């Protein structure tokens, strides 16, 4: 995994996975292919609980800049890049905890 931190920017080559979790909920995600993107410094995954992030994966480009993260507490975060609006990354919806079975 190639990630360099430059202020609030992360840049690097294409990568698909990372796992870390020592710092305060910091999520060093990976990078869009060969471009530098503004990236928020830390995305809290859970409040006051530090869990390792096992996997990150970019959505297909047709869907926009969306990142899915899987963590060791069994939770999945789906983060959507909002551009210049703060916060830069948001979860897709406020009621995402409400999951229900389709079957």
């Amino acid at each position: 995994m190639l990630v360099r931190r430059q202020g609030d920017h992360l840049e690097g080559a294409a990568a698909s996975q990372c796992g870390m979790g020592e710092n305060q909920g910091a999520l060093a995600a990976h990078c869009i292919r060969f471009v530098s993107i503004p990236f928020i410094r830390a995305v809290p995954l859970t409040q006051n609980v530090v869990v390792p992030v096992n996997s990150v994966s970019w959505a297909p480009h047709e869907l926009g800049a969306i990142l899915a993260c899987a963590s060791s507490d069994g939770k999945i975060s789906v983060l959507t890049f909002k551009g210049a609006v703060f916060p830069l990354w948001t979860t897709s919806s406020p009621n995402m905890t409400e999951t229900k079975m389709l079957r």
Partner: protein
Amino acid sequence: MFEAHAIGCNAVSWAPAARAGSLLALPSTGGARSAPVKRFASAGCDNIVKIWEFSEETQAWVEEDVLEGHTDWVRDVAWAPNIGLPRSYIATASQVRTLTSILPLRWGRVCGVARSLTMTSVYRQDKTVIVWTKDMPTAPWVKTALDPSVSAAPGAGATPGKFPDVVWRVSWSLAGNVLAVSCGDGKVTLWKENLKGGWECVSDVSS
């Protein structure tokens, strides 16, 4: 953020944006080439793989399907690229559990007697790779385990359906027809589907 798997979630993989079958759909049917679908698969420590889809209606992620077949942690999941053909493929790899499954000593509340809850039944050694296929968007997922014990695969002679060592990662070629499997024995094997729907090891590379 939402609860996906008990204990832990090991991997996520997005579905191709093109809906399965959208390439062959007639424009006259309307809506066939609709907006790309937001869908991904997740692999967990509860031995199952779940398919999630974003519902624009309720603005929430909905558990669409549950794939059961592994007997141990699912370490990796990879959704094959697809340009819109009807058939979908997902590969999953399972790996034997590590130290985390051995419970530490726990102190009994009565008389302070130490009770050991060390579990020995965890060594089930599920070293399998399963390819899940779905012929049509409405069809169920069908599982096929890769079998390294046949043909000239490196695991020849091993237990049928099992890899010689732990299987860490699975990855599809860009065309979505070749599956690469990385194994703890230091080899990467490449797999292709044959005309009968089985999977054959077509190549192995030593690291």
